[in-house]
């Protein structure tokens, strides 16, 4: 699905990765691992088109990323460090706006997605009065809504409780079974039922 060739990126005069090539295929989970500051978030931002600070080529289904940005954005779901959840809007209004931004969030209704993330009954509460974990859940409700084949998740499990993490793992497993692909970073021991997780270690890339 996604092919990266000869990626080079440096930040503050430190080379994060050079000559870095890899591929992500359908029905695959790729976990980016590495120490703090090894460039995990930078890599994910590059992959989802949020950073131009690199040289190298990225292809989506054989087409260069720059050429078909809009199509790529439709096929990709990015959940970043920051959840993109507005504190003064309710969970429902937040999700409604996200659906406006991204038409591929159409798999189920907002109510169903909120039920799935365990926020049923909280849909009318402004998000700033929810807990950190609950706010994270509002952002992650997008995963239930999304029909995009590629998910790019940056530390999706921060602030989630054990039950929440388990549910998300099951969700990822389901996504993979439907032929999707997931790239994620996490410091959590990932256990995806019935799936082998392919690690990409950025510490090794930097040495090589």
């Amino acid at each position: 699905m996604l092919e990266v060739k000869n990626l080079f990126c440096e930040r503050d005069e430190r080379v994060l990765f050079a000559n870095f090539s890899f591929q992500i295929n359908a029905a695959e989970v790729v976990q980016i691992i590495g120490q703090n500051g090894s460039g995990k978030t930078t890599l994910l931002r590059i992959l989802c088109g949020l950073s131009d600070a690199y040289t190298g080529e990225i292809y989506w289904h054989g087409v260069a990323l720059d050429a078909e940005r809009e199509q790529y954005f439709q096929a990709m779901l990015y959940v970043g460090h920051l959840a993109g959840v507005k504190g003064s809007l309710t969970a429902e209004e937040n999700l409604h706006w996200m659906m406006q931004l991204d038409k591929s969030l159409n798999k189920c209704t907002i109510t169903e997605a909120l039920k799935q993330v365990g926020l049923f009954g909280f849909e009318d509460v402004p998000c700033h009065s929810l807990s950190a974990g609950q706010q994270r859940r509002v952002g992650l409700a997008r995963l239930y809504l999304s029909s995009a084949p590629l998910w790019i998740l940056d530390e999706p499990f921060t602030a989630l409780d054990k039950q929440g993490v388990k549910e998300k793992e099951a969700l990822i497993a389901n996504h993979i079974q439907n032929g999707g692909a997931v790239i994620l970073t996490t410091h959590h021991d990932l256990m995806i039922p019935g799936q082998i997780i392919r690690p990409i270690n950025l510490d090794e890339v930097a040495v090589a």
Partner: protein
Amino acid sequence: MRFFFAALKRDLLLVFRHRNDIINPLAFFLMVAVLFPLGVSPDPAFLSEVASGVIWVAALLACLLSVDGIFRSDYEDGSLEQMLVSPEPLLVLVMAKVLSHWLVSGFCLAIISPLVAMMFFLPEQGYPALILSLLLGTPTLSLMGAIGAGLTVGLRRGGVLISLLVLPLYIPVLIFGAGTVQAGAMGLPIQGYLALLGAILVFNLMLAPFAIAAALKISVRS
């Protein structure tokens, strides 16, 4: 078009939830109007002479104060990233954001401006000129301000920089805006001034959205 209204609705809803965002520029505008006569001179003849300039400067600074926040909260909570990875066109989104900013700053200022004009003993025949010049001039301020806001949104303290970037661009609007009011107050024709303000607005309306979108991309992607 539907996306434009959805974005506009969201921004207005956000403003409605943070009501002091509307009150801030208006309060600033009114405070200048109230304090100026106290500090300088309450003489009606003097005040009516300086009214056009003072009202326009106050309106301009009120716009400048609020424009810094136009993308700030979206940047801080990650909404802006989501907007940039959205397949929806960024230009439309930017236009909706600028329009919502104008509705809560420039448009409201234009509406309460007769009140301020009264405090400054502006001759009554100058009122239409004041309202029209603010209605035509302040959208330009929002558009130009948004370029500066987009460029500085990634910086920790963009407040000073945005003034430096944007104030020189504001000067023509200030000159023609205050000129309109002065001409109107003296009973002179104002069509020429209004046409110039309109021309500046149309020019900005065409080009500024591209600049704002590019500025946001630079701020987020670098």
